[in-house]
């Protein structure tokens, strides 16, 4: 587990952890842990607990989660992307995301890239490079670059600033009201 979460830069690089379909928020952080703390570093100790209780110890800062369909289904818990981010995960890339998890990832400043077909293009341990300006993921091993599904510009801006709280602290307004 890292001491500080990854700060958002234009080029994020990390090793891929590849998961299957329907990795839900109970797997990402069980209720009994997320409901007993308000501290993101404490939440990070339980990142992917449902898959492997020691997962947080195995993450290197900057690692990237790659998953199949419907990543983050189930509960609305924002603690799910928070736990991943504070455990050192720099981005989540998936065939598709569950709706609330996707919103939450942008809100808390964890890049979430929806790339259909990505699972078959990345092996466990491959190094990926993420560009959040172009919204692309590149597999360094295969030299293939994948374009993620586009998002409204205000969502990308929010991400670039590190999430909704950081955005508001900087501009004193919410990104969707800027027009």
């Amino acid at each position, binding site marked *: 587990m890292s001491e500080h979460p990854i700060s958002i830069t234009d080029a994020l690089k990390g090793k891929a952890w590849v998961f299957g379909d329907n990795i839900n928020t109970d797997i990402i952080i069980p209720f009994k842990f997320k409901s007993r703390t308000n501290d993101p570093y404490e939440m990070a100790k339980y990142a992917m607990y449902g898959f492997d209780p020691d997962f947080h110890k195995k993450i290197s800062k900057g690692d990237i989660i790659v998953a199949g369909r419907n990543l983050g289904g189930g509960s609305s818990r924002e603690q799910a992307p928070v736990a991943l981010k504070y455990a050192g995960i720099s981005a989540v890339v998936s065939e598709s995301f569950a*709706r609330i998890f996707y919103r939450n990832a942008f809100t808390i400043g964890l890049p979430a890239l929806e790339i259909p077909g990505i699972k078959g293009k990345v092996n466990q341990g491959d190094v990926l490079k993420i560009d959040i300006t172009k919204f692309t993921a590149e597999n360094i091993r295969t030299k293939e670059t994948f374009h993620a599904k586009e998002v409204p510009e205000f969502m990308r801006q929010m991400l670039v600033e590190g999430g909704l709280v950081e955005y508001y602290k900087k501009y004193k307004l919410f990104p969707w009201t800027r027009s």
Partner: protein
Amino acid sequence: MQTTTTIYSSSSSLQHLKQQDKDEKQDVSHIKNILEDNSLTFAEKIISIKNVETHSKKSKIKSVSGDIVVVDVDLALAQDSTGPLAIRSLNEMGINRLHDPSKVLLVIDHTFPAADEKVANLHALMRDFASKHNCMLVEGSISHQYILEYLANPGMMILGADSHTCQAGCVSAFASGIGSTEIAAVWATGQLWLRVPESIKIKLSGSFNKGVFARDLILDHIGKVGEDGANYKAIEWKFSNEHVRRRFSMDSRACISNASMECGAKISVFPPDEIMRKYLDKKPRINNNTGEAKIEIQPGTFAGYKDEFEIECDKIEPRVSGPDNVDKVHSVEELANVEIDQAFIGSSTNGRIEDLEVAARILKGRKVHKNTRCVVTPASVKVYEEAIKRGYVEIYLESGAVFTNATCGACVGTHLGALGENEICISSSSRNFVGRMGALSSRVYLASPATVAASAIEGKITDPRRYF
């Protein structure tokens, strides 16, 4: 409409009052036009009405699926596992004023009463916040049930930091789950951005056979479409005829709207009818701003749907889902030899009075199997009181079951029915994900309260039909 009122009522100048009058007339005609528009789905209609851009200036605007809009929110919920993080985010942003505290609802339900000191401290944080900001605070009823009992009205825009907020779709509200920091933004501004969803129409026909319930219907559907079958989409339920419509009670509609989350639905709405009106009229409504927005919305006859299904209720049999994923749906027969350690009846999905009634009917004069614990948890204080009044609690206790206070406890494995290593539970609660109710090696199967009660007696997964 409410935003304009709020803005202008604070000014006494004649010009402003004239402007207000004009705006309200424009709003009324805009709403009328939208309601009568035959090309729009329910979601498109309600968002066209709640769209901030629309009712401030450009009163002719329609929102259609795919649009990104900012809407006025009538009720903003957070509970004890999402509220503390929302409060933290609000504090970090340096916001110390809520846009309209009368539209903010905090509910302490998930781990109520506090199971340990860590939870107690987070509950205290919520109480302090509610008292400082004078917003609504409810303790000891599950939020979604409380909202149905006291706050929800047709045509309301309800957002909640809880995925099962979609339950209020059963009274024809736009009700959807979001995260903690976004709910904090709603508290601060009364608004949030939304993408107008595509819609799926599901027509219901026929009637249930004995021992088959709404939960079986929605589990069966989720088994067919998968856990992301309605991701990002609105589900509109439609009754094929009057006969079918009258057979769907409010409790069964609430179960269906709630459980639609398990196939990813953004909202899951029933059309307004007299069953809904009767249900709303007989309940005490809390007098606050959330009650103003009572607009009955019927989808347009020529609205466009992404998908259409028909479900023949008479073809559905008791269903059991699990373990580990809600879309792993089986017949009872396939799982008939699975022995259980615990049977749980409760949660926002199936903890209403009709659910407790069917459980009492089956447990009456019988005993819970010696190798099985049976826990019954009502969804709210009102349901709790009604269960006592009707004598159900006596029946449970005589059968050897435990009757708890209203809480989400067992469903989320936090207290009052958590599972140990390798234990197996059949449950009427919302989810069966790995570790959901306790140990990672425990297993949860989901079913209707009838199937759970029958299983409690036999100590293994059991077809409830022999009990009817």
